[in-house]
């Protein structure tokens, strides 16, 4: 069966509208770029198979809507994510300033119990645009990434396909690491044994 014995990783992409989330996904998965902007409504769901260190994984990527009026699905679906990618546009100051609130909102809505160890990745997109338009320097972005807990930081261009595979390989690795630290008791039959004298078995009040 397809999907069986492959690790599934749930990855959520967040960020302001028009920073290029959908464009990054299109370039990463289909190798295509479109100049035209089409707002994402609700969310798009994209599967991507990868091999990381001989491990077969499938990423279930959630490309979300940056525009508030199109966030019709609510935010409850953040729950159970393995990794969250925060995207901003290097030519748009507001989108950079909003990164922290995207992160905080995610932590609350996804009900993350250990925020310090949850894998986030920051992507600054549209580095192909001319130098004069750029408003956030690499240094400034690095500083923010460090202050949020040494988050991996990548600068990309969805238009010219720069650094996207590299960024998503790190996304996959971080998500996989998160997956692999899970520990569970293998001998489930020892978890609870039915005891004939036990209360939940015997309704007798003696």
């Amino acid at each position, binding site marked *: 069966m397809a999907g069986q014995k492959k690790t599934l990783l749930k990855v959520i992409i967040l960020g302001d509208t028009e920073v290029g989330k959908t464009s990054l996904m299109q370039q990463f998965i289909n190798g295509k770029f479109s100049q035209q902007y089409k707002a994402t409504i609700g969310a798009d769901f994209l*599967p991507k198979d990868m091999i990381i260190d001989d491990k077969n994984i499938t990423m279930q990527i959630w490309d979300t809507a940056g525009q508030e009026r199109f966030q019709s699905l609510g935010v409850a679906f953040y729950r*159970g994510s393995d990794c969250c990618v925060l995207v901003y546009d290097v030519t748009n100051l507001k989108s950079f300033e909003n990164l922290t609130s995207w992160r905080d909102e995610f932590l609350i809505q996804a009900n993350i119990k250990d925020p310090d160890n949850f894998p986030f990745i920051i992507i600054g997109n549209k580095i192909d645009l001319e130098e004069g338009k750029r408003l956030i320097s690499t240094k400034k972005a690095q500083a923010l990434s460090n202050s949020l807990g040494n988050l991996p930081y990548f600068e990309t261009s969805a238009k010219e396909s720069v650094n996207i595979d590299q960024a998503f390989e790190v996304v996959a690795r971080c998500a996989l690491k998160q997956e692999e630290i899970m520990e569970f008791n293998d001998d489930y039959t020892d*978890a609870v044994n039915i005891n004939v004298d036990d209360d939940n078995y015997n309704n*007798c009040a003696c």
Partner: protein
Amino acid sequence: MINYIIISSSGKPIYAFDNNNIIVYSAIIQSIVSYFTYSTSPNQLINSIKNNNSFINFAHYNPFILISISPINHHHNPSSLSILYNYLISLLSKPYIDKIFNKYPNFDFTKLLSNSDILTLNSICHDLSLNNNPIFNYNSLQTLPINYKIRSKINSKFNSLSTSNLLFGLITTSNFKLISILKNIQNSNHNLHISDLSILFKIISSSNNFKLNSQYITNETFWLPICLPKFNSNGHLYTLIQFVELNDSRYQQLHSISANNNTDKLLIILMSPFKDSFNELKKISNNLIKSLLFNKKIFNSIYNPLSINLPIPSSIISYTIKNTSLLQFIESPSNSSSSPLNFKNSTIIIENYSNYKLFACKLSNYEIYLKINSSTPESQLLPISKSILNYCISNNHHLFIQ
């Protein structure tokens, strides 16, 4: 075709009968379900979606979301999703599953499913989508008709061998026709449920663990931990499973009876709450098998079970008769178990198909299901059913287990 999909509450796929696009579907299903669960006020749960072509059913049993997608006119078994849920619980028990998902909401449950679990899920979905498993359809067990005096003999033998660590015991044929059942509990609040047994039977028949070259293995005794969700979803019962070959010329010589292929194998199922009671149960099983094989009357009654001679015309293609107070049924040898008719509030249903009719009626504590030639006049159906009823009433003690 019907599709069944199971995902975790976080949207990770766990199982799909049809795997196409499952990664995307899982995400869509989770978004829809979590939207209703968390973003509507007051919070609502979504139960179903209907459009012109299909009907989508949702069941949210934390940490699982189950859905079925069926064509709009399909006879859909309303218990389908809970049967699938119960199967997942039967593998690992509720507390174990809760513990994992409380700790890791993003847990990928496919890691805990073996290939043989997938085979069982496929087989359950196959049955549900075709409505061809009578235990699911009628929520009752099939019996092997045996003269009631001989059955009482079997029952009392079974009882006399029982020990305090034996909780439940079943003797069935290898296709799960019930011969004898032993409930060794004083507390009547706890009982064996049909839905639990239907899962156990599916596990036995569909996984390859009990078979060699698609034949049940008779020279090994199996010890299987299984959680019976309706009985107690909190833990496991330890289950001894033993198949016994009946088609052996030595028994025919011993009892001087002729070869007949009616019942080829027996199945002994013994359940205990204690992991270490295997040897004790194995001893019960050995003694039980001896008394079944070496008593001529008993052996013959199982090997050549009573034939059911219903007073029915040849226009009846097949029948199923359910005793609704005992939750047991018998059916014609040629039954293809066509889709169960849903009585809702009526007591009689007739459905016409291109070359046959389905008829069902409730009479006293029986439900009678008939598949008949289209040419049979409807006026005959009730008189036929009444004569079937009379036959069942006078043979009740042979046909069903009291």
